């Protein structure tokens, strides 16, 4: 599915200094057509395909590193279930790191 991913707060440095990535993400292998594609799958996809260096700056375990904010269609992912948030066609997901000087 077509998605737009944005990286801010310094995270763009981990993805070749590109802030905006328009990507085409395939459903994970073995997933049935009815399975929802969630943030959990997306994060794993991003780590494999977009993060070129220092993945520990972006993720910790299964989820994002504490201090990284996630917005799905301009909405805090805490409202939609964090890792369980379902992702749909044409969604815009923004990752902003807060871990830098102010």
């Amino acid at each position, binding site marked *: 599915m077509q998605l737009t991913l944005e990286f801010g707060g310094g995270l763009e440095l981990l993805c070749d200094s590109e802030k905006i990535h328009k990507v085409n993400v395939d459903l994970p292998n073995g997933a049935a057509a009815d399975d929802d594609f969630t943030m959990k799958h997306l994060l794993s996809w991003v780590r494999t395909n977009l993060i070129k260096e220092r993945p520990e700056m972006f993720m910790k375990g299964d989820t994002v590193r504490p201090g990284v904010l996630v917005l799905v269609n301009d909405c805090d992912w805490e*409202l939609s279930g964090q890792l369980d948030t379902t992702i749909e066609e044409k969604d815009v997901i923004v990752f902003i790191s807060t871990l830098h000087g102010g």
Partner: protein
Amino acid sequence: MEASEAKSKRAGGSRLCCICNKRRPVLKRPKTLQQICRECFYEVFEEEIHQVIVQNRLFKSGERVAIGASGGKDSTVLAYVLSELNRRHNYGLDLFLLSIDEGITGYRDDSLETVKRNEVQYGLPLQIVSYKDLYGWTMDDIVKMIGLKNNCTFCGVFRRQVSKHSLFTQTFIIPIIFCFMISSLIDFLKALDRGATLLKVDKLVTGHNADDIAETVLLNILRGDIARLSRCTSITTGEDGPIPRCKPFKYTYEKEIVMYAYFKKLDYFSTECIYSPNAYRGFAREFIKDLERLRPRAILDIIKSGEDFRIATTTKMPEQGTCERCGYISSQKWCKACVLLEGLNRGLPKMGIGRPRGSVNGDNKHTKAGSTAKSIESKQCGSLDF
């Protein structure tokens, strides 16, 4: 119709904003766990800061206030919100942006470009001060000399002591770059050459947020620095010095500052200082972030604990005197900035770092027997260094 309904169901559930009950929520506040919409978020964010300013009597009408601006998220939002509140509630303040150039290539030069843009965007005049002009050393020079450990000690001390010199209370000098926390002027004469303008400052505001202060409380506990622990939660510091400093964002969560900047599309610079990964504060920050995930309220609670700490009467606290070399407030014979500078100028970069050995003015040779005989308890508060 169905698709967008499904989307909004997914986004905020079928709930509405807790406050207005009209709009779709976009944020879950860590402070209160409320789900609120964009407009209500702007309102509570700005109103809470206004209340902090009013209840703590941070400003007086007519004051000339410098906003420590680094181009980063906190100082950008601070500049925006403060100038907005100044207008809306008629604080009567004369605001301007103050920036410091520590001389860190690739970090500070880029962030200063952002501050220059802020100057235009918010209509606030900008003044810049540099470590090179003030101390004769840039951070890059310092790191070349001392290596990658303890850089933050130098930077932080130099930064805070800028205001000690009459620069700010009396006169001039100017195009110097400021750090986002005011630093002090040591080399008055050099600065004179650069022309002068009257730079009178009554107060300095910085963008330290709740997360920063909680980290500092923890850091001081971890280091056994009781003297700092007793001061670090004060919303205003340096009232007995030349320029008081205050932190209107003391109770504001970092997450909310970033979300505010994002929704309002405020321009800020976000690269980590290249020397910071080696700083001890990083551990406290990591811990605080993990804690916030489990229990967001912890950040404010740590600050509350810090505010309510009382020091046992039997604890020996360092006495406040003045530095013999420059006259700044100091609990030792020489203030930290003078010790560090002397070390740099003499090619003794470790001076002022680590446990104190003998007097600063005397020789640096010490008898090993003497120093190992001291126990931890006999050390003065705040004199243990890592």
